[in-house]
């Protein structure tokens, strides 16, 4: 069995902050639970406008964006966030395919993850992205 990827031990103030833009409370809760258990701090946003504001004002290590948000298309949100900041962007979608991954890459998305994902897939992807070992969007896992 391969060892699980882990982050170095940090004090609470040093915990990497991850913005999660998803309007589904169940998904938000799942991501929060999985990532907090790994030592991350999660900043939730249910709307694109909130995510955009938080991306500008909060020190973040990563942004996770769902493709479908109530007030904005996830690709458009990723494009706007990419114009503001350089940190990695992970896009989630239940309709992940080659075409969407190409569009996501063009919008500045660093990696993609199809829904439904497994906790280990999310964990590995996030640690890879924050550790600077991100795969380009076109080569990420779209078939959980």
């Amino acid at each position, binding site marked *: 069995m391969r060892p699980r990827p882990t982050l170095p031990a940090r004090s609470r103030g040093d915990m990497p902050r991850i913005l999660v833009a998803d309007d589904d409370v169940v*998904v938000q*809760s799942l991501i929060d639970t999985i990532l907090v258990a790994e030592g991350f701090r999660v900043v939730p946003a249910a709307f694109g406008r909130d995510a955009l504001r938080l991306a500008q004002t909060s020190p973040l290590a990563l942004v996770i964006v769902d493709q479908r948000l109530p007030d904005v298309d996830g690709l458009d949100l990723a494009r706007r966030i990419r114009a503001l900041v350089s940190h990695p962007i992970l896009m989630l979608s239940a309709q992940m395919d080659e075409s969407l991954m190409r569009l996501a890459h063009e919008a500045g998305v660093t990696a993609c993850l199809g829904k*439904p994902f497994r*906790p280990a897939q999310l964990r590995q992807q996030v640690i890879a992205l924050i550790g600077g070992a991100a795969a380009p969007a076109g080569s990420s896992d779209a078939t959980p």
Partner: protein
Amino acid sequence: MDQKTTLLVRGVLEQHYDTIVSRIRSVDSALRLLADGALDPAVRENALVEAHRLAGTLAIFEIGDAEALFTSSEQVLQEVPQDEAGARVPALRGQIQTFLRQLSEAAGQSRDGERT
């Protein structure tokens, strides 16, 4: 999933159990209305959103084949005309009822696990 992750994920299931069941019931209700020829466009739209969410979420709880079930529900609500729905909806609704029972059992196990 390792045991720690399983417990964490089941905790989320318990926390959001009512929301999930409400979503499933809205999909089930829309399917029934479709088969009866009485599905309102707004109800269909809401059920499509819920079926899409369920298909993209429930597999993480590892209960039955939720992704296939709610992807099928989404497709039927989206594409199947009312005169054909009568043949497909009963089986789908039966699978939804089975899934609801499995979900209830899984949430119950989670509560039992917290007490022990």
